[in-house]
């Protein structure tokens, strides 16, 4: 999904005003309508109340700690999946035995809605960090492996031949040619897997608790403190935006040759 999202930053102030007026309008409307008492505050607390709640959650450290837990679970799992997925993906593309063994498994495993395994992982590994991390790893393994495999298959044969004629042996070929040549596709896999890692973590936290943004968010609903739910969503939007920008920046940085 390497779709281009038009960036918020427009060339001129007028343009940027044009493109965000609707958001400003919505926020003003939100505050006005809630102040006039037109909406039951449990459904939609005042924007100012949500912002206040956000500040309180951040300053007491609750939000920071929850964000740390969520991101730690998501990224440790993602890291594991990245190592395993890239290895399996490349082996599938380069080795007939691996291809024979893993291709049907990938074909079957890829469309499984992994999130349905949350109760299974609760049964197998409990509700703690380890369980969540393994779940994230299993869920993000597939897109990473598929993208690594397809990227490796598409490495131009003449690049490999070039390297061979210049004296690159079998062992070194992986590091010298295959990995760099497949790296854009591998990176795309990671970009697809990152939101999936967050999805899995949030849902697991909402179902099983144990802290984290998902747990904090759902606690707001259950404790009739909806401002907390909204505040956490603000935080999640911010995290999502930052991660997305970071990945894009990393891509232009690392893959500036593409």
């Amino acid at each position, binding site marked *: 999904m390497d779709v281009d999202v038009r960036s918020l930053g427009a060339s001129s102030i007028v343009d940027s005003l044009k493109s965000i007026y609707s958001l400003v309008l919505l926020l003003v409307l939100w505050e006005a309508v809630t102040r006039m008492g037109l909406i039951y505050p449990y459904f939609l607390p005042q924007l100012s109340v949500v912002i206040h709640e956000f500040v309180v959650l951040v300053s007491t450290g609750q939000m920071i700690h929850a964000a740390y837990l969520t991101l730690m679970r998501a990224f440790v799992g993602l890291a594991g999946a990245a190592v395993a997925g890239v290895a399996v993906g490349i082996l599938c593309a380069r080795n007939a035995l691996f291809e024979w063994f893993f291709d049907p498994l990938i074909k079957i495993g890829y469309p499984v809605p992994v999130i349905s395994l949350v109760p299974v992982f609760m049964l197998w590994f409990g509700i703690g960090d380890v369980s969540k991390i393994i779940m994230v790893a299993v869920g993000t393994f597939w897109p990473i492996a598929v993208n690594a495999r397809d990227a490796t298959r598409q490495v*131009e044969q*003449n*690049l490999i*031949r*070039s*390297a*061979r*004629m*210049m*004296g*690159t042996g079998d062992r*070194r070929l992986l590091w010298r*040619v295959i990995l*760099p*040549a497949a*790296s854009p596709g591998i990176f795309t896999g990671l970009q697809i897997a990152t939101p999936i890692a967050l999805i899995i973590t949030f849902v697991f936290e909402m179902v099983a608790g144990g802290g984290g943004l998902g747990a904090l968010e759902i606690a707001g609903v259950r404790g009739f403190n909806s401002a907390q739910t909204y505040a956490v969503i603000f935080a999640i939007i911010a995290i999502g935006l930052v991660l997305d920008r970071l990945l894009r920046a990393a891509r232009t940085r690392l893959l*500036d*040759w*593409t």
Partner: protein
Amino acid sequence: MDGSIGISNLEKVYGEGTERTKAIDDLSFDIDGGEFVSVVGPSGCGKSTLLYIIAGFLDITDGTVSVDGTPIDGPGTDRGVVFQDYALFPWRTVKENVLYGLEEAGVPDEEADATAQRFIDMMDLSGFENKYPKELSGGMKQRVALARTLAYDPKILLMDEPFGALDQPLRETLQDQLIDIWGDLDKTVVFITHDVEEAVYLSERVMIMTRHPGTKKTVTEVDLDRSGPREDIVTSDEFTRKKNEVWRSLREETKSEVQP
């Protein structure tokens, strides 16, 4: 090591069963060390296949191909291919591409750097050392490809329609550069092209291949006086005569293609 190539009774078959295609049929041809030979033939006649077999990229179905009297066994640094699609490493800059073969050979950094720079300068690429391939024009990419192959000093240069995608003035410049390099560096060159004029202009011998499945049809010796400037050579009677000879021979093959 003199860079001679011996091809005898070469046969190459692709695929199996219903997909079986014979690309090269019973081809024998010897190339001396230091010789410049061009290969022309209708498209699909097996020119690239022949070149890749000499390079060691493809298995031989039958017959033998040897370099310096030894049957080839896979690719080796004694042979360097210049690919039609350049096949530059896109993640490496111009300089890094040219350095690649030297790195693999374990040449010490400073020496490698000097060698790479020499070939970059020779190919008029100075100032572009730190550019990535995507930032270069087709002609520049082809020069980088040539510099990269020359830098690790293979005895034999195998070139697959290297100037096919370039416009005429650029082709001519690169052709003249190639002749200079060949004269200076003492290499065996096997040059594939579909351009008869290019083949006659560049080479000492031109091998014409039959259409699919390809084999050697005729070999034309070209004995031109190459000391003068280009315009003198291409307007000479000898050049025109050889060009027509090769063209006629090739014409027979392309014509027979459209007949039943």
